């Protein structure tokens, strides 16, 4: 099946989950990422159980945050 990952269309085996895609794509710091599938954000806890389908478009977004409340 074909899945578009970060704008690039690639071939994957059927039954691919988000968790497996993260492994196959060698995503660094996976604890920091949010994943969208066809513009819908997936719950991180469900990455191992969410199966992807032919034609899906997946984006990996790194959480970006911080703050000024502890300046030494």
């Amino acid at each position, binding site marked *: 099946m074909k899945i578009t990952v970060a*704008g690039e269309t690639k071939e994957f085996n059927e039954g691919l989950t988000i968790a497996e895609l993260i492994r196959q794509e060698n995503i*660094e*710091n996976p604890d*920091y990422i*949010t994943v*969208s599938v066809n*513009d819908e*954000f997936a719950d991180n806890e469900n990455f191992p159980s969410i199966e992807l389908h032919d034609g899906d478009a997946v*984006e990996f*977004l*790194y*959480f*970006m*945050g*911080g*703050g*000024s*409340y*502890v*300046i*030494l």
Partner: protein
Amino acid sequence: MIIISKDDFQKIADYALSELPNEACGLIAGRIEGNDKIIEKVYLLSNIDKSNEHFSLDPKEQLAAVRDMRKLGLLPLGNWHSHPSSPSRPSEEDKRLAYDKTASYLILSLMDKDKPVLNSFHIDGAETQREELVIKENKL
């Protein structure tokens, strides 16, 4: 070195001032020439924490920005955020949440609202290194 146009610097400063008392945040994108990063577009995003001491980018807006960068052929260079009442340097929280040691983390201090101070940093764990930042008069 990282280079930003005066217009883009002003855009960030104006937005950050308009978001007071909360922190403001966004993304930067552009091109890399040798060792220099040239910012060609700044993205003004929503701080979903709506806090004066913390920020998180809105993921939906972040996704839209990433797609815009892709469409324009720009590279993601890092992010920026404001410190409404503290200096332009990374906090412990900034360090804790900085996962990408190659990214530029721009911090705008609004301690003096008439003279916002912008600095850029590389953050690698607890280590921070100031990156030379140049504000250029003309559009890059």
